[in-house]
């Protein structure tokens, strides 16, 4: 222990405590408070709340909407994740020798990350519109006349449409994340590998991927958080009535609808909080399982 390090102890109160207090008040205390609220039945109007123990949690397994919402979260995580990481891997495998254009590509694909999702939601609502949407316009322009009037936001295709739009929205972040990691792999390693007659796929599989594995795992953890907490985009896409179609509800949407009731009043604050608690548990379990399953010895270079 250095003298300098010890000296910083005196700085704890002026330097660390303010951040800790704000964090405790806005995040930690409410997080624990949430567990408390989840044990009550409460409309949020008036003063009456009833203690119901774990009954809110007991109701969850047979709740069909919970199942729809959780399924959508998981579809987004798995199917969307597959697509997002396929794009990112593709970029990592194909682009390392591309020079300056690489930087441009990186800068462009990151753009959707800085745009509020609600704005992108408006864009995609128009893209998918059955009467005058861009997608139908493109499809009819390339000769698929049957496409005219197709309701992409109809019940059969809406979930696929939402996942596709979210892949488009999020892929850029993971491209940048993985490309950054790959750029730290010395270029001569690629060149040597390619010279040795390895294919690009082999180079990616046996050289790049092991070297960026840790970052891939970080990326997957971030994707769990993005996919499971998805609210903004789904909330606003494909409807103008203040409530998205149930076919695409995610758990955060379900929590919002149950707690704050939107147009048709539901007002189940206790139950909504119980659902939120299960969401936290699910996210935590997914992260732990993923980290365990993908743990590999770190490869040095």
């Amino acid at each position: 222990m250095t003298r300098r390090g010890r000296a910083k102890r005196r700085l704890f109160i002026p330097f660390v405590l303010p951040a800790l207090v704000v964090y405790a008040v806005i995040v930690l205390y409410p997080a624990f408070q949430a567990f408390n609220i989840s044990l009550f039945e409460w409309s949020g109007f008036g003063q009456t709340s009833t203690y119901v123990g774990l009954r809110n949690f007991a109701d969850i397994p047979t709740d069909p909407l919970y199942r729809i919402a959780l399924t959508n979260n998981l579809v987004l995580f798995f199917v969307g994740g597959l697509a997002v990481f396929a794009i990112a891997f593709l970029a990592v495998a194909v682009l390392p020798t591309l020079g300056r254009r690489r930087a441009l590509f990186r800068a462009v694909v990151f753009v959707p990350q800085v745009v509020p999702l609600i704005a992108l939601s408006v864009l995609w609502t128009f893209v998918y519109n059955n009467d005058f949407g861009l997608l139908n316009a493109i499809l009819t322009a390339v000769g698929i006349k049957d496409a005219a009037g197709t309701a992409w936001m109809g019940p059969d295709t809406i979930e696929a449409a939402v996942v596709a739009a979210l892949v488009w929205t999020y892929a850029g972040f993971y491209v940048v994340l993985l490309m950054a990691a790959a750029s730290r792999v010395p270029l001569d390693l690629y060149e040597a590998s390619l010279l040795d007659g390895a294919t690009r796929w082999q180079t990616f599989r046996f050289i790049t991927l092991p070297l960026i594995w840790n970052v891939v795992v970080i990326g997957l953890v971030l994707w769990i958080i993005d996919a499971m907490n998805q609210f903004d985009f789904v909330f606003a896409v494909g409807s103008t009535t203040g409530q998205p179609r149930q076919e695409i509800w995610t758990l955060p949407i379900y929590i919002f609808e149950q707690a704050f009731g939107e147009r048709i009043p539901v007002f189940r604050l206790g139950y909504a909080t119980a659902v939120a608690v299960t969401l936290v548990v699910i996210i935590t379990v997914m992260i732990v399982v993923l980290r365990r399953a993908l743990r590999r010895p770190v490869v040095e270079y």
Partner: protein
Amino acid sequence: MARLHPARLLDVVSREVSLALLVGFASSIVLALFWISMTAFKSNAELFANVWGLPGLLQLRNFDHAWTIGGMGSGFLNSVFVAGGGAIGVVALSAPAAYVLSRGEFRGREALINLFAAGMGAPAVLLIIPVFLMLNQVGLVDSPIGLVAVYVGIQVPFTVFVLIGFFATLPVELEEAAIVDGASEIAVFARIMLPLARPGIVTALAFNLIYLWKEFLWGLVLLRSQGHFTLGVALNALRESMSFTADWVGLFAAVVIVMGPAIVAYLFLSRRMLDAVAFGSGR
């Protein structure tokens, strides 16, 4: 031969196909931005006559409507206030904490870091009901100040975490030298470490600014009067009032107002932000 050639051929073909896919993906983003900006200047009649057509007369009226009647003007000011206040607040609060946590040696340091890190995983939907009730008791619902407080609080974990990483990369020797010269701990932080950490601080500011500019759920739940809406919440209200106006071009003008500043900021900060993602990937 049969083993090598197909693989090689496939490699070339797949490289071209992959490149085409990636270029297509990037082009779709550029195209989307261009299309939105173009549409925002059209009239509704032009839009529905041809969704791809260029605007005839530039309809500045769309922006005027979105800005005044659509509430994007006050939304803009509110967003500047809450995103700016939140970002500055959280960095001011987190930088000293991160400094001590990254370089101090005391009991419970790792536990504290873990405690901060744990907050990064707390979903907004878990906190939103209790925080709502708490703010309610102190009269800070529907208040930009209340929203700033929430923004600062929820961004502390991420910001502390990022800045700990930055401070950890700074050389110890400079500090040692300054202390030998008789500078106080606080002076060392303010005069030496903070300037050195400037790239990190700017990055943390930029990320928080953009994140809070994008933030929607907290605003939606906490703000109730139109005069207090942030841009995202105002855009949402405008989207819902589409039911009565069917004014798509006005809506896209609002979209431009929402995303324009973020994209302009990104043009200036892209190097730093992309590098920061890269830095994050080195964790």
